[in-house]
């Protein structure tokens, strides 16, 4: 499948279908009903890493809920999680219940998904690709 996508590409409908299938391959976060919208930010990548750390609390202040999944650095500059992990005592890996609880109470959380339960299909695709 990955080779076919590489050579033939995906149109918008195919991209949408693949994306939803990936999402539905595992567990998803389920938040209580709330008037505050759930939002997050995704970057196309590059050296910088200056957006996530200020954006999550800013959005929370504006009345959004931000369950921000973040990643480690892909290059020499490190990623958002690398920076947070350098703070003594700061935890970036949390159980699902605590993530939801923090988002509901504080408005935002930056964390790392480390289980095989969320979007396992993409992890399987990466294993095949490597």
């Amino acid at each position, binding site marked *: 499948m990955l080779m076919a996508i590489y050579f033939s590409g995906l149109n918008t409908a195919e991209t949408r279908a693949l994306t939803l299938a990936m999402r539905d391959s595992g567990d998803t976060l389920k938040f209580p009903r709330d008037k505050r919208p759930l939002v997050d930010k995704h970057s196309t*990548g*590059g050296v910088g890493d200056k957006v996530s750390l200020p954006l999550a609390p800013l959005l929370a202040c504006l009345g959004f809920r931000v369950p921000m999944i973040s990643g480690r650095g892909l290059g020499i500059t490190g990623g958002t999680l690398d920076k947070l992990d350098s703070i003594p005592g700061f935890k970036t890996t949390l159980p699902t219940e605590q993530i939801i609880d923090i988002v509901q109470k504080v408005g935002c959380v930056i964390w790392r998904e480390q289980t095989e339960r969320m*979007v396992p299909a993409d992890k399987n695709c990466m294993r095949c690709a490597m």
Partner: protein
Amino acid sequence: MTGTGAEHSADCFIDSFQKLAENLDALVLDVKFGTAAFMQTKADARQTGARDGFAGQ
């Protein structure tokens, strides 16, 4: 940047799938451009943002 564009692109792709599992109402796409990003020019970044934003609707 130590890896190839393809490696970085794949990593970004995976992160975006994980974002979907958050059951969001909206996702802000931060399209970076410049010498240390995938998109080299502002025009390329705008084109990517328009395409991916449309795909996500």
